[in-house]
């Protein structure tokens, strides 16, 4: 007759946490006991269902990381939902006017630069990764040998636009030997995960 295997031991066996002798005892019991095998199979089904329920989260697009500094801790604890967070952060940002104008759809297209000053392409090359991975307020330095420029990019704040896309305001400085450029703008992440610059103001 096989040894009695209690449920906790069976679970530990499933998790590979038993010592070799104890594991052998469980295996011997499993060989003789249909009921025990079925109980083990039921536990395995639980783990399969857990994976099916939670693993898709690993492949779900992540929201961008938001503002680090200037977040009031108390308000942060009490509020929930992106809407509150967004409003607070938009106000916290130096670019509040720009963002609100943009969000309201009243931003004048005439602010677009008619032709790109040198360095703007270098900024655009940096934006997707910086906006996707960096916390607001973090300055990332870059060096672009192709464009022959170097500079910094800094996400300023994060908010949801009316279409439910995550948008981030950013500030960038770029310079080469002859000139320097400061650029501020807003980019939004589209459904395919691309960061599309919606507004950008460059000051040479």
């Amino acid at each position, binding site marked *: 007759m096989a040894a009695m295997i209690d*449920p*906790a031991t069976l*679970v*530990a066996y*499933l*998790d590979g*946490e038993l010592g070799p002798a104890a594991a052998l005892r469980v295996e011997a019991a499993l060989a003789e006991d249909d009921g025990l095998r079925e*109980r083990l199979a*039921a*536990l395995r*089904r*639980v*783990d*399969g*269902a*857990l*994976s*099916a*329920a*939670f*693993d*898709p*989260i*690993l*492949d*779900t697009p*992540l*929201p961008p*990381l*938001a503002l*680090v500094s200037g*977040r009031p801790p108390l308000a*942060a*604890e009490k509020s*929930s*939902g*992106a809407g509150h967070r967004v409003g607070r952060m938009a106000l916290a940002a130096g670019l509040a006017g720009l963002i609100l104008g943009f969000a309201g759809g009243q931003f004048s297209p005439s602010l677009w630069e008619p032709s790109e000053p040198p360095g703007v392409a270098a900024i655009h090359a940096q934006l997707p990764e910086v906006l996707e*991975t960096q*916390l607001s307020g973090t300055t990332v330095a870059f060096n672009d040998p192709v464009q022959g420029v170097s500079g910094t990019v800094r996400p300023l704040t994060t908010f949801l636009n009316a279409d439910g896309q995550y948008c981030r305001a950013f500030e960038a400085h770029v310079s080469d030997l002859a000139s320097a450029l400061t650029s501020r703008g807003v980019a939004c992440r589209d459904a395919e995960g691309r960061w599309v610059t919606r507004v950008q103001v460059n000051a040479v």
Partner: protein
Amino acid sequence: MDGNEPWSQQAAWQALLALRPRLRRFASGLTGSLDEADDLVQAVYERAVERHLQWQPGTHFHSWVFKIAHSMWISRQRHASVRRGAGDAIDPDTLVGADGERAAHARLALGDMRRLVAGLPAEQRSALMLVAVDGLSYGDAAGILGVPAGTVASRVARARLALAEAMEGREVEAAPGTALARSG
């Protein structure tokens, strides 16, 4: 910190970013809602940065981050036990995408399982997520939760047995889709 090679902030940041999906999965199991999970993950990143990524090389980076997440969740629960809405459970649509029939099947099956997990006692939930979902050893999970490994073992066992019993009753996930295909 003293004498050790300086732990590059950039390397720490990259390691932290790489952990985000797993951290988010863990947090969604704890909170029962993807929104709250994202809020918690965001807070963990802020806390990690506040601490200047003071992780000690040689210890498990993963454990350090998950430990922060777990303790922040515990303290949030204490503060926010007041506002506990039923309307903010994870919407599986945001996970599987709106893909017609398949999504409809997934919605029921995934939603059921998450509800079952959310119904477990909090301390069983955290142990279960670490061991059964994240695949940690009892010892590693014990380090994160701040309890002995034997306690992790018994929490994980009770959680799995409760879920097995609940699934038996409902046939959740036992044969994905088949029962639904008939009714739908």
